């Protein structure tokens, strides 16, 4: 089975600037997080995948179709939710979503029926006949989500879907994305700089920085490749406890009330010994779970060190 997205030595230049630098990857169907800081090349990659701009060199394929040649066939099977506001304010929610369905190729009757269904899914059932200009930011985001789903595409690309939302709205949007990610036969690319969003929704991640691929793979596998660490929380003076750990040859990092240290054979016994010696009480001891953010930062750090050396 061909991969959902595939790039081979993909490069895109804008005059002197190389926005994408020789990215090669093959991603299977599923929920894929595309993360990286601003200027990482995420948006340029999306533009190439949508067939809107050609690569300077290399190739990109979506659904085993060449993005440079088969842009229309690709966009027939892709729903795109842009980051920025892009709605037609004078239209009603239902009219806009149905209209976008028709521009995607749905017959008029089907487009309207699906627009009703998809607006119900996004929680805009009651407000669908109101003008978009009267919608709140959260409602606008939901209309943007609805227009991306109206033609029921096998692949949806969401660009910063939680941007500008309050905490409740963000949770609601992530909930919708989680439901969409769980649908069989449907894939998504979630482009964001909010790494927590990716952790909640995606099972695979593509990390980019300065136009280059930092890492790509299953989230669980990438997390497992991090350092094997344990986290200890103690009742008492953590600095005293840390000194006792250092005396035993360990390298603790004190982070507020927690102490993090690299796991080694017999380290647990030494931790309890150090606690006894420093007069603190161990409240919990657990393996450190790396967040995507930590992973991303450690990869950035490693890349920077590699560049220096």
């Amino acid at each position: 089975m061909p991969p959902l997205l595939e790039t081979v030595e993909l490069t895109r230049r804008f005059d002197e600037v190389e926005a994408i630098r020789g990215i090669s990857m093959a991603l299977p169907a599923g929920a894929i997080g595309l993360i990286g800081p601003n200027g990482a090349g995420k948006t340029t990659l999306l533009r190439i995948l949508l067939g809107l701009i050609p690569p300077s060199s290399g190739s990109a394929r979506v659904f085993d179709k060449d993005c440079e040649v088969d842009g229309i066939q690709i966009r027939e099977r892709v729903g795109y939710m842009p980051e920025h506001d892009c709605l037609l304010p004078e239209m009603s929610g239902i009219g806009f979503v149905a209209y976008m369905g028709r521009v995607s190729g749905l017959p008029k009757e089907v487009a309207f029926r699906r627009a009703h269904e998809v607006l119900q899914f996004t929680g805009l059932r009651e407000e669908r006949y109101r003008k978009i200009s009267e919608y709140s930011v959260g409602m606008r985001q939901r209309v943007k989500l609805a227009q991306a789903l109206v033609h029921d595409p096998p692949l949806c690309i969401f660009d910063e879907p939680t941007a500008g939302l309050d905490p409740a709205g963000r949770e609601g949007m992530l909930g919708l994305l989680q439901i969409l990610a769980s649908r069989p036969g449907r894939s998504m690319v979630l482009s964001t700089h909010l790494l927590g969003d990716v952790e909640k929704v995606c099972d695979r991640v593509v990390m980019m920085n300065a136009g280059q691929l930092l890492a790509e793979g299953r989230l669980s596998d990438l997390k497992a490749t991090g350092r094997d660490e344990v986290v200890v929380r103690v009742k008492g003076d953590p600095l005293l406890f840390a000194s006792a750990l250092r005396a035993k040859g360990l390298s603790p990092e004190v982070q507020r009330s927690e102490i993090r240290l690299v796991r080694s054979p017999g380290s647990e016994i030494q931790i309890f010994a150090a606690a006894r010696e420093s007069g603190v009480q161990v409240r919990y001891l657990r393996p450190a779970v790396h967040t995507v953010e930590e992973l991303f930062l450690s990869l950035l750090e490693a890349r920077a060190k590699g560049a220096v050396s």
Partner: protein
Amino acid sequence: MSIHAPEYSLPPPALRPRPDRWGAILESQLLERGKALNFVLLGLLSAAVLLSTVVPFYIATLFRGGFGPGVSARLFFIPFSTGVWFFLLVLLSSSVGAGIVSRDLASRSLTLYLARPITRFDYLVAKSGAVAAWIFFGAVIPSSIGCFIVLSLGYASLPLALQGFGGDLAVGLLAVTAFTGISVFLSSLSSRSALAGAGIFGVLIGSEAVAVLLAAISNQPSFGYLSPDENLIAVASGAFGVGGDPLSPWVAAVILIGFSATTFFLAYWRLEGAEVVPE
């Protein structure tokens, strides 16, 4: 209330071909332009053209015998010669064409259009089609109705009415392409509809003023080719057998077609450079 993935009540249909997709845009834009101001302008234009077509024929019929056989065909030229037709058509073009692309630039909905399975060319064709249809309603339909009225009232014979209809169609279609081209191009240059509308009006009226002024100062009538109005009048005078126009109708027609093609190309070029997914 629990939420669940959308369950569509209809199975996924085969997507309609590209003409249906840009047809949806065309339909939407055509309806969106159905505003009171545009209908008022269309009404004024129709009234002006019908009156300036039917009344001269009525008067000519009253004095039948006093006019030569060729004079009647020339009567179809009257609506184009007064300047009212051109002025109202410029107003209509400014009104319907101003927001055709600029609103999509302002709302950034161009992103959504171009991320759909259509090309920039499809988008431009659909948008231009909506503007062209409205200008067609003003540039061709009233004069064609005028021909039908003079025929039905017995003011003109069938061959004469057909000649009038053919001339009206030629002049009207040239006006439709030229005014649509400039409207779409200027609308694509700005994200402010009012500015685009003022630009359309200014370019069309300004070119007429400049052409007339240069022709008068230099005593060179060929400066008239700079003005769409002068070119349309030259084509009309050729079509209805009115002599005396210093401009060649064929050259004028070629200039209008070239002007239309250039503005369409420029509008397409402008869209090529438009950011679809901004960084």
